[in-house]
């Protein structure tokens, strides 16, 4: 009876005789557009880099003051906080989440550092450590709500954004701590406002910190198992889970680390603005600015694609547009107009790159 099976198999597979032996060959696409699509698929930060270079060239032509060292260092200085918040946002968006509470965590952490020093007399260094720890804890709360209770990240962070911002106002009693008091009594809080001035060009420590954080996270995401797990979790959580990735743990770690980056941004804010202010605009705008940098930087809002270096380019593009258009002397509203157009362009490119397999 065994012939039964064999005969059926051999009947319908007899047609294979003379067919090519190769199975599922990979055909290299030869069209230039297809090649470009494949290249962008593997190099997600290329699009923002190209946009950045084009913007630099155009503004260089339009304004002779643009390519001055002071202009460029001012751009870097102005994106320092958004760049650090962008590190937090990049991590979260890579997991297909979103964090609307980044600005609130940053402001609340800076207020906690300031008030711990000035209201409770804690040494500044310890106050900073407390602020960083509490910022991490706020992020971890987001993570637990999202990973364990399976609540949508948009809703969770929409809630914690309001909660943290309100707590920030209540706790601080709307008091601003003056810059002169901080520099007299707790200079450590203003550490990142310090600068080096090679040849009279002022470069804030905050700029070096931002670049260092981007570099470290680029390494972690690309070259460690944890980084690969972040991508896998955002790409397809069920598949990642079955393949052995502890996705819940990864999510909680990602949101907690995002909280830490936000608290670092809060510390940098003190150095950058001098004072500690619970009404700093970062609380309301930090999330939108960081999401803008991430999206223009080519990180997919659907998770699992993009690179943190792209986010850095995205933040630079925003900074270059703001500075360039100001130098050219146009109505500042054009900045927002162009940024808006860039966001839509970036998402359209992302959708096109995703179709690479189709």
């Amino acid at each position, binding site marked *: 009876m065994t012939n039964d099976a064999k005969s059926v*198999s051999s009947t319908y597979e007899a047609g*294979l005789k003379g067919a090519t032996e190769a199975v*599922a060959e990979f055909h290299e696409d030869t069209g230039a557009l297809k090649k470009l699509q494949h290249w962008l698929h593997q190099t997600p930060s290329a699009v923002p880099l190209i946009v950045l270079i084009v913007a630099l060239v155009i503004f260089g032509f339009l304004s002779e003051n643009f390519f001055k060292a002071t202009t460029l260092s001012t751009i870097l200085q102005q994106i320092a906080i958004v760049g650090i918040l962008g590190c937090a946002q990049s991590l979260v968006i890579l997991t297909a989440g979103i964090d609307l509470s980044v600005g609130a965590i940053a402001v609340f952490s800076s207020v906690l550092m300031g008030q711990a020093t000035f209201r409770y007399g804690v040494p500044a260094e310890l106050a900073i450590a407390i602020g960083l720890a509490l910022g991490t804890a706020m992020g971890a709360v987001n993570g637990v709500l999202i990973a364990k209770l399976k609540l949508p990240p948009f809703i969770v962070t929409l809630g914690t954004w309001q909660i943290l911002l309100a707590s920030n106002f209540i706790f601080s009693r709307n008091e601003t701590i003056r810059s002169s008091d901080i520099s007299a009594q707790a200079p450590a809080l203003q550490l990142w406002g310090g600068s080096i001035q090679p040849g009279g060009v002022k470069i804030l420590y905050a700029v070096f910190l931002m670049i260092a954080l981007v570099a470290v996270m680029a390494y972690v995401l690309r070259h460690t198992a944890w980084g690969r797990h972040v991508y896998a979790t955002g790409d397809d959580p069920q598949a990642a889970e079955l393949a052995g990735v502890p996705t819940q743990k990864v999510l909680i770690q990602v949101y907690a680390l995002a909280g830490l980056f936000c608290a670092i941004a809060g510390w940098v804010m003190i150095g950058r603005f001098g004072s500690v202010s619970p009404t700093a605009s970062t609380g309301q705008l930090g999330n939108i600015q960081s999401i803008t940098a991430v999206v223009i930087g080519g990180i997919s809002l659907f998770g699992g694609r993009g690179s943190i270096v792209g986010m850095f380019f995205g933040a630079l593009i925003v900074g270059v547009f703001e500075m360039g258009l100001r130098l050219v002397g146009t109505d500042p509203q054009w900045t927002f107009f162009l940024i808006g157009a860039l966001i839509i362009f970036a998402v359209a490119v992302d959708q096109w790159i995703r179709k*690479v397999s189709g």
Partner: protein
Amino acid sequence: MEPILKARGLYKRYGKVTALNNCDFELYPGEILAVIGDNGAGKSTLIKAISGAVQPDEGHIWLEGNEIAFKTPIEARAAGIETVYQTLAMSPALSIADNMFMGRELRKPGIMGSVFRKLDRARMEAFARQKLNDLGLMTIQNINQAVETLSGGQRQGVAVARAAAFGSKVVILDEPTAALGVKESRRVLELIRDVRSRGIPIILISHNMPHVFEVADRIHIHRLGSRLCVIKPQDYSMSDAVAFMTGAKLPEGVTEAA
């Protein structure tokens, strides 16, 4: 001979549905055991109970004589039971090498690995390339290309290669040829035999009777949540097997309990 994997009296209920009803199971070293059954007979629940994706309400499972109770597929994997799911469980945007080593990455030796946690890409890529070569799948040119740029057959090949490479005790294949063309199915069947020839037993879940009868050493027929019988493909015809699993006919010496 002692079975490498044995289950006795498994029960699993989902509300009013009994997916596993006093189910027994044995897998012997070095064999290909096919599991067939009608839709809803409880085959996938049985397989999930073995691979740790589902915890049975009652009953016992032994691997090489030691009782096991996996809470997650990761625990089963650590014990040497590797599963290729129908969904393949791969991250489309990541590379072939990344996917093969997902959850068990290799790190560089020395301080780069221990302190800086740096992945050993060269070693992982060489291994992945070797395994795909074994499978005859090296028409895939670039081990770093994203899985989503592969065809369905290539993806299946990568998933099977992953299981074959890491499954040290048991490899479970859930409908490995369902999405494949004739040529690609043939390659997968050859691969299944390759894996067996290395001494690793295989559980093959399939609806494809010609494939089952061609490669299986024994066939476990599942019906109404438990094992109806185990037959050898030499002793019965495909139509007999279909009759058993649909209840049209009973094998000799078996009375239907349900």
